[in-house]
């Protein structure tokens, strides 16, 4: 069994563009905005970067194929530049490329960028894509909210939670994220909402209303990683290191096999278990003090609290209503507003989550800073549909 990469890679610098409807720039501008912050934070010159990874979810809508657009936008010094795509987990996937390159010793310093330019598609939600491959021919005529909404029906039936009680709990999830997003100057959506507003919003996909769905945004996030030794040599004293980085991809069992009841995320449970093991965490409720999870929809966040082991199965509804994951709760979730309000430029989201965790660990999160900075912070990045997806879990902490 591999020993993992705990504490073998440190974050040297991070940057994140303002998320939102960025009618003012295209993907290259967003990448530059994130990069300039990251490289200043890292305190290095661009020529010191050995390799780069670009995470994009919908390249045809955003940026085009290959890693070249990243190399061109940042004028990288002809280093290896690779585009990765793994649904909405593409951001963490690009981070994994850079982290593994450093952990392997192949690179001293590597960069990962996640970006998405969604607002040029003309769609309110995510764009519909052409469907020609065989699996598409069997796929229900569906959208992302509809695919995730199904979780609510199965979860409610399994745990005996009435539809309206579940609706109120997921409303609380969104109310909390709106309150957090209001404090984040880079967030897409910055208006607080009430539970009643969330409950009574127009229906998107039963039972998910408008406020149960995350923002569809333009944005980019960037991270530069190196070894702890090099980071110290470069003058860094407070080091945030990678404690664990795990990805689990569905193999079709949820969709085609039998046993999955549609009420949880199989891959999240697997990725979380592997990540806790890699990080040496035996009790996540004690050792994880902050989370950024993939709240593409409010129901996703609620169920994810159980899949990450932060709530007992069937109890997340009550923990949510008790404020356990609020900004002043025991384990805040989406203290930056999350996908819900910071926004969800697909390829950028995984790195944006790590960005917030990084700022919180270093006590640099401004108005939304936790009074006691966390020790370990977890990010959970999910791509695809509940029955067929990629889940990435990253844990970063002070070294």
């Amino acid at each position, binding site marked *: 069994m591999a020993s993992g990469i705990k504490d073998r890679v440190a974050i040297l610098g991070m940057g994140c563009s303002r998320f939102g409807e960025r009618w003012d720039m295209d993907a290259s501008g967003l990448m530059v905005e994130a990069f300039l912050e990251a490289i200043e934070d890292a305190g290095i010159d661009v020529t010191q970067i050995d390799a780069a990874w670009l995470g994009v979810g919908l390249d045809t809508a955003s940026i085009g194929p290959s890693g070249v657009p990243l190399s061109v936008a940042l004028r990288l010094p002809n280093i290896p530049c690779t585009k990765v795509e793994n649904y909405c987990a593409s951001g963490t996937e690009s981070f994994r490329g850079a982290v593994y390159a450093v952990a392997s010793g192949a690179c001293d310093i590597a960069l990962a960028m996640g970006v998405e330019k969604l607002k040029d598609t*003309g*769609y309110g*939600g995510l*764009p*519909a*894509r*052409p*469907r*020609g*491959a*065989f699996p598409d*021919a*069997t*796929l*229900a*005529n*569906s*959208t992302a*909210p*509809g*695919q995730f*909404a*199904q*979780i*609510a*029906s*199965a979860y*409610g*039936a399994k745990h005996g939670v009435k539809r309206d009680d579940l609706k109120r709990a997921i409303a609380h999830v969104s109310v909390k994220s709106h309150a957090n997003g209001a404090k984040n100057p880079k967030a897409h959506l910055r208006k607080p909402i009430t539970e009643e507003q969330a409950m009574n919003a*127009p*229906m*998107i*996909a*039963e039972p*998910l209303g408008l406020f149960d769905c995350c923002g569809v945004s333009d944005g980019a996030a960037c991270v530069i990683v190196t070894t702890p030794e090099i980071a110290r040599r470069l003058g860094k004293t407070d080091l945030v290191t990678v404690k664990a980085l795990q990805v689990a991809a569905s*193999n*079709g*069992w949820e*969709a*085609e*096999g*039998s*046993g999955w*009841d*549609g*009420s949880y995320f199989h891959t999240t449970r697997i990725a979380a278990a592997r990540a806790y093991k890699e990080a040496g965490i035996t009790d996540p409720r004690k050792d994880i003090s902050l989370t950024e999870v993939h709240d593409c929809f409010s129901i996703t966040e609620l169920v994810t609290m159980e899949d990450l082991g932060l709530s007992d199965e069937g109890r997340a509804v009550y923990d949510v209503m008790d404020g356990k994951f609020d900004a002043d709760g025991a384990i805040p979730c989406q203290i930056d507003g999350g996908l819900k309000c910071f926004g969800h430029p697909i390829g950028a989201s995984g790195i944006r989550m790590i960005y917030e965790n990084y700022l919180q660990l270093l006590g640099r999160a401004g108005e939304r800073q936790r009074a006691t900075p966390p020790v370990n912070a977890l990010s959970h990045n999910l791509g695809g*549909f509940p*029955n067929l997806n990629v889940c990435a879990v990253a844990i970063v902490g002070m070294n």
Partner: protein
Amino acid sequence: MASIIAFGGYVPRRRLQREAAVAALSWFNAGLSAHARGERAIAGWDEDTVTMAVEAARDCLPEDRRSVIRKLILASTSLPYADRQNAGIVKEALNLSDDVGALDVTGSQRAGTSALIAALESAAGGSEVLCLASERRKAKVASEAELTYGDAAAAILVGPGAGLAELVGHHSHTVDFADHFRASDRCLDYEWEGRWVRDEGYAKIMPTAIAEALAKFNVSADAIDRFIMAAPIRGIDKSVAKAAGIGADAVGDNLQDRLGTAGCAQPLILLAHALEKAAPSELLLVASFGQGCDVLLFRVTDAIGARAANMGVSGWLDRRKAEDSYIRHLHFTGALTLDGGMRAEADQRTPPSMLYRHRRSLLSLVGGRCTKTGTIQFPKSDISVAQNERAIGTQEEYPLAERRARIASFTADSLVYTPDPPGCYGLIEFEGGGRMTVDFTDVDPDTLEIGQPMRMMFRLKRHDVERGFKHYFWKAVPDYRAAT
């Protein structure tokens, strides 16, 4: 000797309330109020004559009896494809073996009965033939036809030997009487004056043909127990019967007030409907009109009392939802284009090479069963999806289309583009194993619940309008036979 071995029908769930259509149109044509009575069956946006024929065939024959079919004949004047064998698509959906014959019959309102005659002739030669007739005729907006037409299908299995009703004889009379016509480059009929059609067409051609037939069969008109004829003109069936010397009591329900007239399928629908209540030794006379007249005479056998239960035309008629929106009807027929937003613009091109490679999955809904682990899955794959044993190359075909299922998760999606929002879909679990996330159709979104019994139906999945290609797949509908 050739006989009817089995029969079935299909009527779409929605019934346009003629009153609603007349209310929307009377400012334009007050004369339409003469047709305000009753309702007509309208196909869903995802139904056409192929999908309706499939349902009628399934109603006619359970899966385990389909292997008797040696040939499939599909009659319609509203087939989705002018050149791609429509009966061949039905054959795949019914999961018939490849060594069967298939034939499309079209071109006249007699196509249904002419197909049945062709089927019976083959049956006399020793072959079981499944004769299908299906119709979804387009009518001009605000025409009488728009109100009187209906969408439906029928299936009649014929074969050699004694069955439920044996053929006494058939007769055809052909004259080029163009009461209406539709050129091959047009999509709508052009009709001539109704009084001429009635008086010179129906009232003269049909009695003449019936008289010729009865003389040939050596049967007198007053011996006919049931006279079966479509009645697109109100009362025309009674007039023809009278002119032919057939008793008024023999004229049964022509379903005009409940279904409408389903073109060339109507005589077969009415025959299937009549057989549901027929008694041994009754004589059923079927007559159709269209550039002449086909006449078929059947004698019901004692076996009629022991036939297998099915939905039948009556069962499908009872499975109904009143449609009060004339706009929805126009939208479903394509007569009115509603703005579906950008999602409706998404390219729907489907590679035929992929469809052919996966036709067993997509058209026949055949999944896989791992012979090592027993795991049932859809679709079939090289490596079993079972978590405990990733067996390689062990899967045998496992048909799922006739398996009942239950809802395990669901949603009603208002964001997705569908001609009939909200788009409803969810995870279903098949009895005995297997699952899929699948579109639901014929559902009321507010009534969906976990555990709800469902059945599969062959439907249109999407329509590539730009290239004129229809992509079919299976969807789940509330189990209309859950109580049985």
